[in-house]
């Protein structure tokens, strides 16, 4: 990560205007979005959009040609621009040929992408943004920090300052008054402009129509008052049929702003008469700019299903801390990292994509069905291939890849950590490692790892069913007692537990860093170790590890083209299961019984990202804890990431720490003195934060709580 980028992250985090406004918005957004979709089947709408836009992405050039034909039949002039330069030149040319002196623009992200305003100004044409947010940032000389709300990073006081300079009058920070000023200032521009430039939200190939969605009404004026209308439209806006507009218009306002529909939608098909009776000079510029290249990449084609609603930004726990000036370029947030890699260059996205913590929140809400975190990992993989890994990464992964050396080092560390250790925590690290313990203590490495502890647990004999336990690094070396609890529960249900000694790291740290070769070797070693004996289940009490077992080892091996190992990965995936889901099955089958104790502890449950959004097992642990007599009080945003994200908290402690702080506040607000969670990574993060805060709240893995309440 570049030093300058790191500094911009630090600046954004210190900007309380930004974090305040974004934070409040992101909290309100979740509620308003849910309300807007009430009574509708989001999944069905999403599937429609995936079908419509997915099929369009397979034939962009065909649809562009068809759109051109239809729109020209209706009287529009259509130009297909392959590059930003071609698009700029064409629009400047239209302006020059028609003696255009002033332009009013309604919002167009594509025009930001090609830096159109600058090109117009250089050609002597004044271009005025009219969307309120865009006008504010144009006056401020900034770029949009959010695709839908470009000026969300500014306070009303800052806007008042910006407007005061423009109107040469001291304005107070009264929002209705500021909006009124914008109306008055821009009304004259609308009436005087020779040309209106708009974007479009949809372009329909069969009819040659463009659909423009706004709330302020500026697009209606920009497409009505000036004698020339130029619409700049990215290829990804193309769809085949008119009937396909409805699902997009159903999702876009709901996902963008929680509205059922925006105030205005215009469907324009060919020119209409101007106010002086002459026909409108209607030009539509379709912009490719590498969208075709993207479409021919089988992994990235799905990114063209984006409808630019920005819901991926609105639910992102990182975006709400740093905003779009750090997290993105022209396009911001998760999808912005992906689009930047294509529209600008892969290396431009390197720092930006590193901000993704892989919590999966965006994928849940994306109406285009885009696997945003998956594509960000793919960028990471490609960057790693192109640039190679850093020396530190190489050194670390070469150790992780050598199981014996890795485990030996962890054992040595258990001794070497002694000077920094306070009980079960490491509270302070010296010098350059100090960031790692900023706001969070680290767990001390256990004196006796689980693999040694396991040998002392006698297994029931003569049972029919065997289960292999995959520990994962944290349970094995930091929290062996969690492993012991897992074994106890399974033994009580009459299962014999095996702990294959040759198991090693699940490879997630390597995979999330783009080091797929390392992750692939981890996968192969583990698969062989875990399938060595005939077991019914392979269970893990770490959701990240479970996801590796069930999905990611196969995906990694597929990326590497290792088809020989792929079949074995499939066999393993079929047996893999997370602890709570397995225990729920055993309880439902009557093989295990939970009994409440005399005391009914009050607790709150923290959803780990992988358990909730990949394994979809948020109910099992809650039900089991209920049966065990735990009274759960739900915390605010229980399923928002705690900031751990595996090695993320090590790479970006400055972002991880405020995420943790939010989580600790939510926990504190419940008044519960116990937090249950199913992930040892979350346990580490939460315990570390509570320890530094001097809190008396305990954090326990669900397995440990349940193991004490088995009949």
């Amino acid at each position, binding site marked *: 990560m570049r030093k300058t980028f790191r500094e911009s992250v630090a600046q954004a985090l210190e900007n309380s205007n930004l974090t305040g*406004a974004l934070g409040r918005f992101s909290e309100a957004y979740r509620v308003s979005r849910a309300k807007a979709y009430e009574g509708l089947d989001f999944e069905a709408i999403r599937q429609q959009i995936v079908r419509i836009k997915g099929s369009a992405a397979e034939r962009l050039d065909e649809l562009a040609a068809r759109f051109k034909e239809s729109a020209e039949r*209706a009287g529009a002039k259509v130009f297909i621009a392959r590059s930003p330069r071609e698009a700029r030149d064409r629009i400047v040319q239209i302006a020059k040929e028609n003696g255009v002196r002033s332009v009013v623009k309604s919002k167009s992200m594509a025009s930001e992408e090609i830096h159109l305003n600058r090109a117009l100004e250089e050609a002597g044409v004044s271009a005025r943004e009219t969307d309120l947010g865009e006008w504010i940032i144009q006056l401020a000389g900034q770029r949009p920090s959010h695709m839908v*709300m470009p000026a969300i990073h500014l306070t009303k006081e800052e806007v008042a300052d910006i407007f005061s300079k423009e109107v040469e009058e001291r304005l107070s920070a009264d929002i209705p008054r500021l*909006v009124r000023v914008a109306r008055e200032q821009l009304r004259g521009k609308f009436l005087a402009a020779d040309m209106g430039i708009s974007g479009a939200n949809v372009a329909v190939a069969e009819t040659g129509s463009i659909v423009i969605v706004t709330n302020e009404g500026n697009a209606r004026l920009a497409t009505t*008052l000036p004698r020339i209308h130029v619409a700049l439209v990215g290829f990804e806006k193309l769809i085949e049929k*008119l009937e396909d507009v409805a699902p997009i218009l159903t999702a876009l306002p709901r996902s963008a702003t929680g509205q059922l*529909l925006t105030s205005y939608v*215009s*469907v324009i098909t060919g020119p209409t008469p101007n106010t002086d009776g002459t026909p409108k000079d209607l030009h539509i510029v379709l912009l490719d700019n590498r969208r075709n290249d993207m479409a021919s990449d089988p992994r990235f084609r799905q990114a063209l299903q984006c409808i630019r609603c920005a819901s991926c930004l609105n639910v992102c726990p990182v975006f709400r801390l740093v905003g779009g000036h750090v997290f993105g370029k022209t396009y911001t947030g998760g999808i912005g990292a992906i689009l930047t890699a294509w529209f600008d260059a892969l290396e431009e996205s390197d720092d930006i994509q590193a901000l993704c913590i892989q919590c999966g929140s965006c994928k849940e809400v994306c109406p285009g069905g885009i696997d945003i975190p998956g594509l960000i990992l793919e960028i990471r993989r490609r960057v790693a291939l192109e640039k190679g890994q850093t020396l530190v990464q190489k050194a670390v992964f070469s150790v992780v890849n050598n199981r014996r050396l890795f485990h030996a080092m962890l054992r040595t560390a258990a001794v070497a950590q002694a000077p920094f250790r306070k009980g079960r925590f490491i509270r302070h690290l010296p010098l350059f490692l100090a960031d790692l313990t900023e706001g969070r203590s680290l767990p001390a490495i256990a004196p006796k790892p689980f693999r040694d502890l396991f040998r002392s647990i006698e297994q029931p004999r003569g049972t029919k069913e065997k289960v292999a336990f995959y520990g994962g690094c944290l349970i094995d070396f930091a929290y062996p007692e969690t492993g012991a609890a897992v074994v106890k529960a399974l033994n009580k249900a009459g299962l014999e537990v095996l702990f294959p000694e040759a198991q090693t790291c699940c490879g997630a740290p390597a995979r999330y860093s783009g080091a797929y070769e390392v992750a692939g070797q981890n996968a192969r070693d583990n698969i062989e170790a875990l399938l060595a004996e005939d077991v019914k289940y392979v269970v893990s009490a770490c959701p990240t590890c479970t996801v590796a077992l069930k999905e990611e080892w196969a995906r990694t091996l597929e990326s590497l083209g290792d088809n020989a190992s792929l079949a074995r990965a499939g066999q393993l995936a079929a047996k893999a299961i997370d602890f709570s889901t397995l225990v729920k099955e055993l309880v439902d089958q009557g093989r295990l019984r939970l009994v409440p104790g005399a005391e009914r502890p009050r607790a709150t449950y923290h959803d780990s990202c992988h358990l909730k959004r990949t394994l979809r097992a948020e109910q099992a642990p809650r039900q089991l804890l209920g049966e065990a007599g735990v009274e759960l009080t739900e915390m605010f945003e229980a399923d928002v990431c705690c900031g751990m994200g595996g090695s993320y908290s090590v790479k970006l402690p400055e972002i991880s720490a405020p995420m943790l702080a939010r989580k600790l506040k939510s926990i504190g607000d419940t008044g519960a003195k116990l937090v249950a969670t199913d992930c040892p990574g979350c346990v580490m993060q939460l315990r570390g934060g509570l320890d530094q805060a001097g809190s008396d709240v305990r954090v326990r893995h669900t397995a440990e709580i349940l193991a004490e309440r088995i009949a």
Partner: protein
Amino acid sequence: MFAMFKARAEAVSAEVHRLAGREEAMELVLGLLQAEGVADHAGARAVWAESGFLSGLDRNALARRLPGLRFDVTRENAAGAKVGITEMDWAIASTGTLAQASDRVEQRLASSLTELHVALADPDRMLPDLPALFRKLGPAQTRYLALITGPSRTADIERVLTIGVHGPRRLVIVFVDGLKGGA
């Protein structure tokens, strides 16, 4: 469907009225114009775009009754008007939306430059949702399909909802029974 339309439109700050006939509707509209202080000077006029509602009415008499009310919706008249009156083609219940084939520019001038937009509509021309609208009114019927849902709004400064940016600050929807003659 009407009840749903009303609820949805009011939820986005539109005002909804329903009247039994054209005469009652005319009284309501004139009352609205008077309450807005419509008068014959720049910034206080009203423009009424060509609509079926006006057929058979004596426009000169109306203009005499209410100075400042204009029926020639030019760019200049609309820019200097406070109120615009237009007749819509369809209403969409599920979102509280009005739809109009707005090919004629005066329809857009009257409904986008003014502070108050009075939209006349026929309760019999109510459709459940967007797909139903596209079956009735699409590019085959109009080159400029305009959908209007509530007044102009923004939340671009600190996410505070503010009504009336570039378009009308107030939208009054007047449903008139039998407006389109059962079409």
